[in-house]
């Protein structure tokens, strides 16, 4: 049988090369990570490379989406929550939607589970996915993508039963952030795993950004921890602290002060422009961004140790 000694395909790339190779003008790009492991660094590199006319798919359109809007990358947004977490508003997004300033935003609005089901349908190559949301909501009246199907089975009361459905989403590329992967792309996540696996399987191509690339033996010591197997991954990018200002469980904590600050930064177009100039256009890459934040800043986000107890996978004797 093929053993561990055989070299698997090496999919590691720099962030610059991965974005250049897998994100093109006009693409549909999913960025996932629910509060945890938000692929911010990838979003910044998309802005630096000046991508245009993107359709961005993201359940929680938060800071990184506001930044991509400010970078002029996005014409269409598919989302179920457009806010700066519980910390306030997204200034650029609100200007785009409320006043078409500086230009209109094509917003396709769903609910959280509607977005999850769109990924599930995309991942499972289904024409639609049924869900018990939307009945009586005004959302279907502004989103023709939300439709209904009649069940071929009688309902609980014996009469015909209708249920809402959403269509699949099949991004050109999905980008996620994770704690670690091997060079072939076997990706391990712990803590909140969100909708990352479904978003990757729904996409034509997938880029995984990780805190660290680890040896095969690390991944293989715990195969249940692998949330995305290598066959679904096209590029692996090592980018420590690439999820800032969100957090990476066991690596660094959420930068809550930055979330609160963002509402003020993004509210003022001039201040937002300055911030983008300094932190995105004014940094070569994420390493420069993290260095500019400074080690004192990172020390404030450092976390202590709470190790999982090992389990025995067993070995035939």
């Amino acid at each position: 049988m093929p053993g561990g000694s055989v070299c698997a395909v090496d999919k590691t790339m720099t962030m610059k090369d991965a974005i250049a190779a897998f994100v093109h003008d006009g693409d549909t790009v999913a960025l996932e990570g629910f509060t945890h492991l938000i692929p911010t660094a990838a979003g910044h590199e998309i802005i630096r490379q000046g991508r245009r006319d993107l359709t961005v798919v993201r359940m929680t359109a938060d800071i990184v989406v506001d930044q991509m809007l400010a970078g002029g990358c996005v014409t269409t947004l598919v989302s179920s929550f457009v806010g700066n977490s519980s910390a306030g508003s997204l200034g650029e997004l609100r200007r785009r939607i409320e006043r078409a300033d500086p230009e209109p935003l094509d917003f396709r609005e769903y609910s959280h589970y509607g977005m999850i089901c769109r990924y599930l349908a995309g991942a499972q190559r289904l024409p639609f996915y049924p869900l018990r949301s939307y009945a009586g909501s005004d959302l279907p009246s502004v989103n023709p993508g939300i439709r209904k199907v009649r069940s071929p089975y009688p309902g609980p009361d014996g009469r015909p039963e209708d249920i809402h459905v959403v269509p699949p989403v099949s991004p050109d590329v999905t980008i996620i952030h994770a704690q670690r992967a091997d060079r072939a792309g076997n990706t391990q996540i712990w803590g909140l795993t969100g909708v990352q696996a479904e978003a990757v399987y729904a996409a034509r191509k997938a880029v995984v950004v990780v805190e660290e690339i680890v040896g095969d033996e690390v991944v293989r010591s715990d195969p249940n921890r692998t949330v995305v197997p290598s066959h679904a991954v096209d590029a692996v990018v090592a980018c420590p602290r690439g999820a800032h200002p969100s957090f990476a469980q066991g690596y660094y904590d959420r930068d809550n002060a930055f979330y609160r600050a963002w509402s003020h930064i993004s509210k003022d177009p001039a201040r937002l422009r300055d911030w983008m100039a300094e932190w995105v256009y004014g940094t070569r890459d994420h390493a420069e961004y993290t260095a500019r934040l400074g080690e004192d800043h990172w020390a404030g986000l450092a976390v202590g140790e709470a190790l999982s107890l090992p389990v025995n996978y067993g070995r035939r004797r």
Partner: protein
Amino acid sequence: MTAAATAGTGGAPAAATSSELLSVVASRELAARRTVFAGIGLPTLAASLAHLTVAPDIEIVYESGVCGAHPDRLPETIADAVLITGAEAVLSMAALFGSVLQGGHIDVGFLGAAQIDRLGNLNSSVIGDWERPAVRLPGSGGAMEVMANSREVFVVMRRHDPRSFVAELDFCTSPGPDRALAEGITPLGAGVTRVITELGILAREGVGEELRLIAVHPGVTAGQVRAATGWDLRVADDLAVVEPPTAAELRLLRDEVDPGRVYLR
């Protein structure tokens, strides 16, 4: 010996703040409930206090996927790292929304909103027109799913005024069962059954029922609440006065639930 029993001893605590009042009143409504779908803030405070008083077996489920959290610090978001370390389970969002929430495992869901109407329908999407709103709010998130799939929904509204309690929503994000049934679709739960505000408690029994004022806080009159409500609010014949937070409840809230006063500000 329960914590609630011991916390009643000692000197009288300071008067309750608005946050404390809402948390305590909401916690009492959770008596005998098992699973609560809660966001961070007052709902978490209420559920945590209920755990120490009227609902010892309560489990808080967070939209982010956490079940049975045992944080050693008060969380600042529904996905705070401290909720994960030491939790009993972390589920994918597909499992959480599909199997746990839509599967019918939630007794009480907590929701907030910018607007609520007499049937407990909620708006968290826009003020004004959806296409070009005066104010773009965050949208549904999981609110629509919490409404459709929880056995009942509690709403905590800090502000009780005619701009929030409206005759007609600008947009219906999260519909109660009446609106769903009008489309021929039967939802699992009863929709909003309790609205807890700075003025009192509104209640609704289920399908076809309007919210009624069932209790006011001490010093508040039914007339004041009706004036603060954008529709012709019905008042219960046996209108009660809310029992103020007890010394025991306040001590638990202040000393055990939120000693750092992250949410009790």
